[in-house]
């Protein structure tokens, strides 16, 4: 088994087919006039038209986009602080615990994160009356917590490559620390910040498990709506919606990847 043997290259092709065929099929089905996945009833865009008038999905999508934008922005600020703390401040009391707290949500099963956050929100509400009910706010806080760890990983990697002496030089030339940071380090971090925000945004847009725990009646995100429709079986409308989501999210991730790739050049 060498790197270029036919078997190895064949497995690579199989792997890509395995990864992409289901997505491709979903896209093909979304244009199928027939409701059946194994029968081709001709090309049609009627499922998209139906989707465009389905207020359940439109409302849910609007909520999801707002939650994703808010939680990604929160996560960006918090994650950047965490990365700066880990790379630039290095030594501080509780650093080991801090590093553990940053890494743990990355590997924690979603069901545990969701249950834990919900139980805390309920306990908080009983104790101090906040948060009042569950919905936009609780989902945003939950998503920001998970996403901040991903942002930290991305920004930290970039920060480790930037030279702190550049910022020190700016200070030697008379710039106050805050100004030196904004004028020197922040532009160097910009691609990582953009990539981190996009990752956080897509993570939020994609999450169903945590949202299902911490949302309340009246706050249905798009994945929750999709999940409850999908439990009833395959539907052409979901195929159309899935195609739209995959294209939008795929474009976002491709941009994030390009931003991170540029660092070496």
């Amino acid at each position: 088994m060498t790197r270029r043997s036919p078997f190895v290259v064949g497995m690579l092709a199989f792997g890509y087919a395995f990864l992409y065929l289901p997505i491709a099929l979903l896209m093909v089905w979304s244009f199928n006039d027939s409701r059946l996945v194994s029968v081709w009833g001709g090309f049609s865009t009627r499922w998209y038209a139906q989707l465009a008038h389905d207020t359940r999905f439109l409302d849910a999508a609007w909520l999801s986009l707002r939650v994703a934008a808010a939680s990604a922005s929160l996560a960006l600020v918090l994650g950047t602080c965490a990365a700066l703390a880990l790379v630039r401040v290095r030594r501080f009391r509780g650093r080991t615990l801090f590093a553990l707290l940053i890494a743990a949500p990355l590997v924690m099963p979603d069901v545990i994160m969701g249950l834990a956050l919900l139980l805390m929100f309920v306990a908080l509400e009983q104790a101090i009356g906040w948060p009042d009910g569950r919905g936009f706010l609780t989902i945003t806080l939950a998503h920001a917590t998970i996403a901040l760890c991903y942002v930290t990983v991305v920004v930290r990697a970039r920060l480790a490559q930037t030279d702190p002496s550049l910022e020190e030089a700016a200070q030697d030339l008379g710039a106050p620390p805050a100004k030196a940071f904004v004028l020197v380090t922040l532009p160097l971090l910009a691609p990582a910040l953009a990539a981190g925000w996009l990752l956080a945004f897509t993570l939020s847009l994609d999450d169903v498990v945590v949202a299902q725990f911490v949302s309340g009646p009246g706050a249905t995100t798009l994945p929750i709506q999709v999940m409850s429709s999908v439990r009833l079986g395959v539907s052409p409308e979901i195929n159309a919606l899935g195609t739209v989501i995959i294209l939008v999210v795929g474009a976002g991730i491709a941009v994030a990847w390009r931003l991170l790739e540029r660092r070496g050049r």
Partner: protein
Amino acid sequence: MGAAVSAWGRRALVALPFGWLAAFFLAPFLIVVAISLAEPRIGVPPYLPLLDWSGGGWPRLQASFANFALLFDDAFYVEAYVQSLAIAGLSTLLCLLIGYPMALAIAGAPERRRSLLLMLVILPFWTSFLIRVYAWMGILKDEGLLNGLLLWLGVIDQPLVILNTGIAVIIGIVYSYLPFMVLPLYATLERHDRTLLEAAADLGARPWRAFLAVTLPLSLPGIAAGSLLVFIPAVGEYVIPDLLGGGDTNMLGKALWEVFSQSRDWPTAAALAVALLAALVLPLALLQRIFRRTEEGG
């Protein structure tokens, strides 16, 4: 570090994310542990407080392991535990069998193409997990595409029941977590010294022998990291068993959600969460060790 950040700024940099994680990760986590020891009741919230102040003076601690004892007694939970580990283990093995040759092929590709090949592996992982799992429903169901194809080819004359079985869950997990296997494997394979393989060939080793004697042992850290990265999330998986497993599969993540939302038994759900985490402590510790070692080794 240095003068770059002022003392006040430094404190804020640490305090802001640290405080956030303490409030929204550490505290919730401790609450789960506390509630797993509480007694269930019917009401809001559906559990009794751990500290009983009603007696006056010192509060009485009302903690018990009854919820955990229930997990061991009830066949439903024992089955969920065993099935979670078995399905996650089998899926991990399949991921390794498919992912290893893929990583080997990417590491062997010309350098300028590797980045694109890798991105093609990662892209699906970030792209709507839920929708991609859903796509398999159309492929695997009784009147779905796979059965249609097999019937048309004449391989079978009765549709196979795949959806709503453990097999569908394994397919879904392998499909969803394959990138987790390929990435760390690629990372170790890419660093290998090619001259070692050439030396083995010069000494007369056939390609297979050279693979077993050189490549495989050198890639063991990648195998371990990849396997853990697949196994850990697979054990607690909820969406895949729910959509593809039907009533036939019983896994911890799904059981937790059902106990929580349908029975509204929060203490038992919390106990299940603790039990799930207990199953993951050893794999997580191993993963941490591997990462630390690769960091030190550069």
